[in-house]
């Protein structure tokens, strides 16, 4: 089993405020890795390091350690950030489709990657929407505004948009936080489908969700990785008392 993302002794800070302390873990390819932990524990910061979207924040910087994606250190000076982000897609907590048509939303990533052939784009859009289990619902109104969709559909549209460029890794930052239980269920079904093609990293507040759809779970607390292991083991027989306390609900 190959390793998609390898994080070694990563420390990360916003200005002088240390957000991650010495985090090390491996994320196997074509598996789902879930991050759980209380708010502010650094889970989102960690996955935002994997596609370097944190670069936006000028004070944010890696203070120690490395992140390797398929063996390449992505914090090297000569990394092609655009290409990295194309290979490491991301879905955000609050669904954020563009104020464009459904079609244009999915085509966006392809267009900025330089794809111009209309029929190629058509095919890719359809494929992504099918993969995101959205085609049956929107296939007949591709050119209507994305804002006409329900919340769950909009989030699946964002997933379709993220996978349109066929990334290797899909980062999901609390993808169901703004959705109702039914929409959440559909996203979870989608995740188990998607992991056949993509390596998925998901941050969630919902421990049942982590238990249901991940293969590996990491528990973080106060910027430190407390425990990581197969999901079954973390939830049934955690070795760290803090993990156990969090999972059983004694705190957090």
């Amino acid at each position, binding site marked *: 089993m190959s390793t998609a993302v390898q994080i070694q002794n990563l420390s990360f800070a916003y200005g002088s405020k240390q957000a991650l302390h010495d985090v090390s873990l491996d994320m196997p390819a074509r598996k789902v890795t879930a991050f759980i932990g209380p708010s502010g524990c650094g889970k989102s910061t960690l996955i935002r390091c994997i596609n370097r979207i944190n670069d936006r924040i*000028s004070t944010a910087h890696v203070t120690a350690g490395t992140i390797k994606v398929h063996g390449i250190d992505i914090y090297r000076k000569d990394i092609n950030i655009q290409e990295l*982000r194309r290979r490491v*897609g991301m879905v955000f907590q609050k669904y*954020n489709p563009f104020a464009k048509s459904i079609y244009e939303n999915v085509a966006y990533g392809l267009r900025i990657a330089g794809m111009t052939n209309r029929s190629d784009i058509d095919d890719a859009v359809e494929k992504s929407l099918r993969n995101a289990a959205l085609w049956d619902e929107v296939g007949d109104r591709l050119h209507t505004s994305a*804002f006409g969709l329900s919340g769950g559909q909009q989030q699946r549209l964002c997933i379709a948009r993220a996978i349109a460029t066929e990334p290797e890794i899909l980062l999901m930052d609390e993808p169901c936080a703004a959705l109702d239980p039914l929409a959440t269920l559909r996203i979870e079904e989608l995740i188990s489908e998607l992991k056949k093609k993509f390596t998925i990293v998901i941050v969630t507040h919902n421990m049942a969700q982590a238990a249901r759809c991940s293969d590996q779970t990491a528990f973080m607390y106060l910027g430190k990785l407390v425990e990581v292991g197969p999901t079954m083991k973390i939830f049934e027989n955690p070795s760290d008392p803090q993990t156990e306390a969090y999972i059983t609900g004694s705190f957090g």
Partner: protein
Amino acid sequence: MFNPENLIRKGLPKGYFKDILVRSLLGGITYLMVLIAVLLFGKIIIDGAPAIFTSEFPFVDTEFLTAKNETLHVFDDAKGTRHQLPASKYNEYIEAHAGQQIYNEQTFSYSGGGIAGPIIGTALLTCGSIILALFFGVCAAIYLAEYAKQSPFIHAVRLAILNLAGIPSIVFGLFGFSVFVLAAPVITANPVDRSLLVLPLFIEGWALSFQGWNSSLMAGCATLACMILPVVITASEESLRAVPQGFRDASLAMGGTRWQTIRKCVLPFSLPGILTSSLLAITRVAGETAPIMFTAAVAAKDDFPWEGLANPFDILSSQVQALPYHIYTLAARIPSSEYTQRAQFGSVLVFLILVAMLSFGSMVLRAKMRKKLKW
């Protein structure tokens, strides 16, 4: 001990008369403003309407709006009939009635013909300055909103831009005069003597001469653009910031470059806001007199700006008439009489209608955009 009967008041409510007094005072002041507005507009409309509206189809005096400005000649012919003719028609009359005596001739400058020249000049100045201001303003706003880091320095820059909005327009006029009219660089084969600096270019015979653009459409547009830049920058920056952060995140996360993200995910969604806010700036540009007095406007001009030009670009270096300056000329430079009223009040009414249409248009557009752009 609580006595429910106390809930029923005896006599008038407390402070009854004071309330009435305060209320009528505040209301009175408010309606005083309305009265002033009604008087102002009423006077202009009543005196100006005859100049631009007619009782027959198309109900608008097209001549007043489309004819060139001329001197008005008023005279009696031999039969005692009073004639009011603009200069060109007066000359025809004299030719046609050669040898006949005319009596009591009076002339009134700028009062005959129409105001097409000023209308066109104002339109040109407005368009030119808006294009300039939008280009520079949007560029600056993109930098401030998207690229610049939030530092004390950028804060100071923003403050300086805001302060620019408070500078009196006459100061902009003088600034424009000293910079654009007298000192701005031109490429020319024969620099004038008063040129501040002449840099020879590599092409034989041509030089970059800092001799200014003279009083011209170009200098006027540049001056007006400087004046409304702060408005455009502030409005544009706000519109850019109103675009949800999620759009930028999504675009960057899909491998978009910074500029791709701005061009495709931020600008298109902020453009309606930028344009509607800038319409307000148009109203201001169209109405200003001081900045163009020294930089572009002339009181009298026989030709339309595009007439008699060797090449179309020369229009930029020609002087123009402008409505607000024309009104100033009509009000301050000629004695008021029954014969000048048509031109005076007519011009003001046309001007007010134009400005009202622009403001109303921007209000309607803004309301529409607000409804359309929701996220």
